[in-house]
């Protein structure tokens, strides 16, 4: 007879970031991240608990795939802009934990997420920001404002 252990603890979430000597390669590992997936009005929503990141998808598989691709890309952007993942390592707020863990969902799943990714970075880009946020205004229009 199978016996289910009562009160068995799960391993804590962890993350590491290592760099090659020349700083061009970064290796990032994330382990034991708990992700809750709930059905959201026909689609699926996945929310990380120890890292406040989320995704959506038409199916559970889509939501998982989008979570993995999106988080990997988010790690890459943090390395590119900040040179570290420190600003990404923020726990989801208490209300999110309460909502997802205590909420009454007809369908929900949870899984533990692991990833190790290698990021090739150009030193010159690490401190630069994309320019999409700049709004260019013609002088005549600016004067009229």
């Amino acid at each position, binding site marked *: 007879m199978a016996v289910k252990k009562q009160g068995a603890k799960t391993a804590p979430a962890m993350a590491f970031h290592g760099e090659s000597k020349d700083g061009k390669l970064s290796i990032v590992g994330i382990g034991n991240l708990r992700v809750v997936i709930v059905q959201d009005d026909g689609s699926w929503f996945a929310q990380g608990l120890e890292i406040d990141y989320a995704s959506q998808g038409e199916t559970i598989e889509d939501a998982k795939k989008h979570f993995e691709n*999106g988080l990997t890309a988010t790690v890459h952007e943090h390395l590119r802009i900040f040179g570290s993942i420190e600003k990404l390592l923020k726990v989801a707020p208490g209300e999110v934990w309460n909502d997802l863990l205590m909420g009454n969902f007809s369908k929900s799943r949870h899984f533990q997420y692991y990833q190790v990714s290698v990021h090739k970075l150009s030193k010159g880009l690490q401190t630069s920001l994309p320019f999409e*946020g700049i709004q260019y205004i013609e002088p005549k229009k600016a004067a009229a404002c």
Partner: protein
Amino acid sequence: MGTGDVELDVVIKILQACNVAISRQTEKNLIIFEKDEIIEVHELGLAVSRRMIQRFSRKFNVPIHYFYNPDQILPGKTTC
């Protein structure tokens, strides 16, 4: 689309109006959202779900009703 879903184009316009810089990685169908020190990359469909809207509202400090009443945030009318 679910009842709480909002079209992606509308979500992008609202976030941009609230100073979120948005760029696309077209080869991977990923969208980069950036405001202050918050940077996130998401793979989204044509519609954004209710919970994702709630999340964008919380994360980027954008009042949630703007997403459902985009006319309230016309340039020069309201600030975030």
